[in-house]
């Protein structure tokens, strides 16, 4: 999921969701980045309205952590 997380950080920071930026975030986290996965992610997200997807997720009930911390 790290690729998706990276995309979401960029979405929040307002930076462009391109291969370079995703790769940069992942590398900063020490991920051994696969170029093909970055490409695939960017391609898949091209026509997706991230805000909308995020809002829908947010509207869903917060997933219940059962075990106390």
């Amino acid at each position, binding site marked *: *999921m790290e*690729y*998706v*997380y990276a*995309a*979401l950080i960029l979405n929040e920071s307002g930076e462009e969701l391109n291969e370079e930026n995703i790769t940069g975030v992942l590398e900063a986290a020490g991920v051994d980045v696969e170029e093909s996965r970055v490409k*695939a*992610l960017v391609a*898949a*997200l*091209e*026509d*997706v309205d*991230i805000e*909308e*997807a*995020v809002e*829908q*997720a*947010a509207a*869903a009930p*917060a*997933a*219940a*952590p059962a*075990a106390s*911390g």
Partner: protein
Amino acid sequence: MSAEERTTDEVPEWKQREVDELVDLLEAHDSVGVVNVTGIPSKQLQDMRRGLHGQAALRMSRNTLLVRALEEVDDGLEDLTQYIEGEVGLVATNDNPFGLFQQLEASKTPAPINAGEVAPNDIVVPEGDTGIDPGPFVGELQTIGANARIQEGSIQVLEDSVVTEEGEVVSDDVANVLSELGIEPKEVGLDLRGVYSEGVLFTPDELEIDVEEYRADIKSAAASARNLSVNAAYPTEQTAPALISKAQGEAKSLGLQAAVESPDLADDLVSKADAQVRALAAQIDDEEALPEELQD
């Protein structure tokens, strides 16, 4: 046609002509089936032939000639000769064998069963009013195992009653009662024994397609692919929103569990704390210990 070369003397000309006709028929169609026509009255057979017109041709002949024709075409059709036994006919169609099977099933009609015949399925006398006046018939029903009684001025069957099980021979008594009640437990029609279609021999059980099952399989396959795509975090156009949602859910779950002080989580953290305090308060059964808003 190679009829000229084939002047075998032992075969009467009319037979050879009939075989040639059959061969023409077989060669002109993609799928050929052998159907059992035992016990079908000729009138009904004609109706069925008419019903199939345009979609499939039904041909009857002497079995020896059918076999000869099938062997003459060769090309795999000779596999069908194993089904040429008893009263049979050939059906030929350009439809696919599954469609042919469906057509033939649909054309079947109910028919009475005679004493001495083997029940093709469980024979049931259904629950309900027989409409028959009280009389000895109630005893006949009881004799064959139907739960019958006189009620409100007529003979009633109190529950669905199996009077002959599948595979059993129908007795005189049962046949009489069924006839009296007008029950027709048989399905009469062209019974496919086997179909040869474009190189493949099909038995009837292979031809019975449950379209619903395929629809369900498609759904299940699509769901599997979706699950795999999301769970393996391999994004596709269709699953990208689900992945975002999943990532969001995970972050939220972690954030709430760790009580991360983030503006995005503040609402939920407050809600969670409130839910917890209420849950704990609910365990307190001393009024005095309860906050005012929770006291009665």
